[in-house]
Every structure is written in structure tokens, then in C-alpha cells.
């Protein structure tokens, strides 16, 4: 069997938008839909987990990486259908709405 190069140790998530009322929004808190998680009971596993919003820049860092990460964490459930509120170190850019996010499996409580 061919050896897999790098394992996937995160769950994909979709950025739904910001925490909002009808006409005002709080862009410090983003709403994320975790793939595969469709109810509030499932969210408990993900609470506290680190979330990474990854973008590609042009300037490489000292290790040769061009990827930049905006780290956040899952704060709480949002609604009854598995969506989740996340707070990032910098607010997510609005053009990211509809985009992908990685929900890591750490800090682990299992």
C-alpha cells in the first residue's frame, strides 16, 4: 500500500457570515458550519478547538512558507443545526464568506 504523505487532521468548515441581527452585524464573531456536524449535540466535541483561516501571500517566511494563518477558536454552538460561533485573532475579511476554514482536532479533550 502506498504511504500517504500528509494526513488530514482537521475538519473542513464553511464560513457562513458574521454574528448578526437583521441590519447590524458583529464581525468579531464568525459563524462557521462544520462539515458533518448537523446538530447541536455534535458541537460539544468541537468546543474550544482551534480554527485556521488560511490564505496565501506572496512573501515567503524564513521556512519558505507562503501560507498565512489567522487562528481562531470555536466558542459556542450557534442554533440547533450544528453551526458554531468562532472568534479569530483578527476578524475574518468579508470576502471570505462562503469560503473554507479548517477546524483542527486540538486542543483535544478526548
Amino acid at each position, binding site marked *: 500500500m502506498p504511504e500517504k504523505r500528509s494526513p488530514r*487532521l482537521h475538519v473542513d468548515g464553511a464560513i457562513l457570515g458574521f454574528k448578526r441581527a437583521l441590519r447590524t452585524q458583529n464581525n468579531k464573531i464568525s459563524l462557521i458550519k462544520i462539515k*458533518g456536524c448537523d446538530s447541536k449535540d455534535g458541537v460539544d466535541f468541537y468546543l474550544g478547538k482551534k480554527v485556521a483561516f488560511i490564505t496565501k501571500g506572496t512573501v515567503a517566511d524564513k521556512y519558505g512558507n507562503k501560507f498565512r494563518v489567522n487562528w481562531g477558536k470555536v466558542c459556542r454552538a450557534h442554533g440547533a443545526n450544528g453551526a458554531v460561533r468562532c472568534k479569530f485573532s483578527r476578524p475574518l475579511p468579508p470576502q471570505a464568506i462562503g469560503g473554507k476554514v479548517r477546524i483542527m482536532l486540538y*486542543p483535544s479533550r478526548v
Partner: protein
Amino acid sequence: RIHQHCKNEFLTMGKATKTEAPKHPRFYPAEDVKVETKFKVRQNPPKIRASITPGTVLILLAGRFRGKRVICLKALESGLLMVSGPYQINGVPLRRVNPAFVIATSTKVDVSKVKLSKYDDTYFGRDKTTKKEGEEEFFMGDAPKPAVVSDQRKADQKEVDTALMKVVSSTEMLEGYLAALFTLTNHDKPHLMKF
């Protein structure tokens, strides 16, 4: 505008008891002396969750060896876990690992026969002598330096692993299990998985 002493008199008029003004000592130290608090903060030893015991197979979630399944040997005083691949199976040496970056599986291995008393945080701590930066190092820049493994580490690795391999090879499928990487694939839901 009421003068302070008149105000004091007015305030103390109704009071029955007469309080003495605090006496200030004639001499006091030039520097401020820290008052010792009665209650001293006591640091409790770090607690490690119950699912992690010596001999548990762990999945590493981050770092250089992410995805590898390793055997937890013991919990160190700092709260970190001491772990070994074993090295010959999956390339993970004797190492410390943070329990927050680890999933504990229900697979357990008997490590009581392995001698682990000499391993503690100071054994794994960084070498303080190699911190001196000469001119040459300064000009070389921030490039990551290749790690040099001491002979003592290699000998200790061999000692621990021979004891571990006896247990691992006697258990069915364990060697292959430790060699395999953990990964999530399509339709995997970690919140529904039983590790």
C-alpha cells in the same frame, strides 16, 4: 466650602467611640517593604485526563509527527507526556508531548516492565550550554540548525524500545497499527468516532 477639620468634627459628632489616629513610626525604610500576604498561592500538580495512562496508544495531532500513533510511557512532572514510537516502527523517538495535542485511544499496552525512572523533564530539556552566539552564528541567520542526537539518547532509545517491542510484537496487529498513520477521510465525523 467646609474645612477638613470642621468636616471631621461634624462627622465624628454623632459617634460614641473615639478612634485614635494611627501612629506613624519616626523611622521607616527608604525602600518600600513588601507586605507578606497571609495566603500563598499553591500550584497544584498538572492534572492529566483519565483517558491517558501509561501504555495508552496516542494519536499525535500536531507537530512533526502528526498522525502517528505512539505509546504513552509516563506523565512527567510538568504535565507533559513521555512518548515513544517505538522508533523502529514509526520513527518517533523518546519525546515529550503536550496532552492537549493528543487523542487517547482505548488501546492499552502493558509498559510496567519498561524502566522509566530516570526520565524526567530535565532529561528532555534543551541544552543550555549551546546558547552562546558567536559571530559566525550571527551571520548565518535564522536558518534552522540540524538536530544532533547524542549517543546517550540513542542508547536510551534502544533500551526502552527493546522492552517495548516485546510487548508490541506479542499483541496481535499492534505493530501494523502503530506503523499506520491516522487520517480523516471523506464522511469521517470525529465527533461520532470512538477512539
